[in-house]
């Protein structure tokens, strides 16, 4: 577990409610928030990550959709399609069923948006950085010159000057 830093010039991460009320803060995706969170976890399944990481992805997707009305409609229709494929809603299906459904829809514009934006936002989250060992911003801490830029010790050191 690393300690990660967001650049101090950028706004700090916004908290997201731990309870079901996180859905209420959504705009165009309020009706499909839970489906999208399950979708994000299906696309990038990290068992160690708490639910809030995936909820933050949905919040970021929701903000994009708030600026593009057509996108909101496309994604809500896509969620309806996901729910129609099996006798249970997508969010209640076990993982292999969810994966099989998504594999048939990879060329859908809504899928492309959701997959790319899940990757875009999930791995740009300081909590995820810490989970996977990325330390982030460094100049305000003096860079890595005294913080391990050359501390790899399981291979021989190259001669200096090389």
């Amino acid at each position: 577990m690393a300690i990660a830093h967001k650049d101090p010039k950028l706004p700090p991460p916004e908290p997201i409610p731990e309870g079901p009320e996180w859905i209420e803060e959504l705009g165009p995706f309020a009706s499909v928030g839970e489906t999208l969170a399950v979708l994000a976890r299906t696309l990038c399944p990290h068992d160690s990550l708490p639910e809030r990481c995936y909820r933050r992805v949905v919040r970021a997707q929701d903000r994009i959709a708030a600026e593009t009305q057509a996108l909101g409609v496309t994604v809500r229709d896509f969620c309806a399609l996901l729910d129609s494929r099996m006798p249970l809603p997508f969010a209640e299906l076990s993982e292999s069923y969810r994966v099989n459904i998504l594999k048939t829809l990879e060329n859908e514009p809504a899928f492309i948006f959701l997959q790319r934006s899940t990757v875009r936002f999930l791995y740009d989250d300081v909590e995820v950085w810490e989970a996977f060992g990325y330390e982030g911003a460094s100049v305000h801490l003096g860079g890595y010159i005294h913080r391990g830029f050359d501390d790899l010790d399981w291979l021989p050191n190259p001669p200096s000057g090389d």
Partner: protein
Amino acid sequence: MTAHYQLDDDGVVVIIGSGAGGGTLANELAQKGIDVVLLEAGPHLTADDFVNDEWGGYEMLSWLDKRTSSGNWRVAKDHPTAPSWSCKVVGGTTVHWSACCYRLIEDEMRARTVYGDVPGASLIDWPITLADLEPYYDKAEAKMGVTRTHGLPALPPNNNFKVMYAGAKALGYDSVSTGRHAINSVPYDGRPATIEDGFTITGDKVGSRWSTLNVEIPRGLATGKLELRAECCAVQIEHDAAGKASAVVYVDAGGMTRRQKARAVVLAGNCVESSRLLLYSTSALFPNGLANGWGHVGRHYLRHIIQTVWSIFDKPVNMHRGEIMIGMLDEFAHHDPSRGFAGGYYVELNSMGLPTTAAFLDPGWWGRDFASVMEQYANMAGIFMSGEDMPQPDNRITLTDDVDTYGVPVANIHYDEHDNDLKMRSHGYKTLSGIHKAAGAKRSIEAPAYPASHNLGSNRMSARAEDGVLDGHGRAHEVANLFVCDGSQFATGGACNPTLTIVALAIRQADFIAKEMAGGAL
């Protein structure tokens, strides 16, 4: 003593674009006492504005105006509206670059002669030789403070390099070194040594890396001969009745359309913008676009064979710590027909933070396997190649029916991979993975090319007017006072990262422009 020129002052050289070519040329001309107006579409940011944040930096610096793409290159599928990657900011893409500084080699500048007739390729020899460029390479390396040149020490090995070094040495690639970079290993020219922060590509807050933003432009401004106009986007180049460039029409920060008269005009807006401007500058005299009588403007577009292999090791690497691309081996840089393809490639280092590793590892990849790779980020190393791609006449920049906010047609970039390109890609992936395997990698992922950052060739120089757009000084064959000073002037791509060559060509072009002016020819 800030220069300020009137719009109707027809004694100024107008340069469009402030990156490696335009920013360097502006300073070089100003140092010689020549009046220069430098137009830059993007804002004038400072080190304080930059952030240590991959997506934050990308969104702050990148040229994000819409483009489209077509062809069988993977970029058209993965990044259809952003196929090319350059910066829209004072300093251009030198604000983003990772500072690799390698020279073209002699064979590359005689590609048609040395490689022969490669079917489907539109290879030519450069109209200039390596000997013509060498004195300017020396000057460029001195002004940029390139490590391992002019007595400047090498950059120290970082974690990611240790992996590359171990693998390369095990395979007998003895040329492996930390390479040559315009990043200070020791204080030089008023700039500090690197603190190994790992954020060169989001603007370099420290200033240890050369850029036109932190070196050339301030020095040019200090002469009192250079006027920088930021947030001024050129939309058209005009000519007079005699067919000489006479003015540049641009839209300023307030949205007003202006017309700056000019003694000479230089395009340095990176391949796509420079070709787009020429194609859009049509007239009765130049119905197919300015300087496009032979139809080569926008054609022969090159973007190098660029790709990365990311490998996972049993133990931590922490590749994000330290300078990004400080590793190089040149065993494959020379043309060697026994490999089954023309041209060569350099093996270099690459590292990314978690956000962009995830985005570029294999766009569209999802599920348990992808997630398990991402979870091992701390144990991941990156290795990269830059190789020569084959020019093809139909790999080109064209204008679409869609228009931007200024009414200028949006550019499309079409690129089909040549068989030679695919052979080199396959060979290169094997080399890159082989090096990591020799260092103990347990898994390697062949990542595809990301949006093209080495954009070259689309206004190429040629000995004969019918083969290209420009002469050996980057001057249009058909317009005596019109120049190009970016990577689009390359006759062929060579293998190495192009910035050092762009800077050397800019210094050489400044000498030529000054001589022509002094002689009354310009």
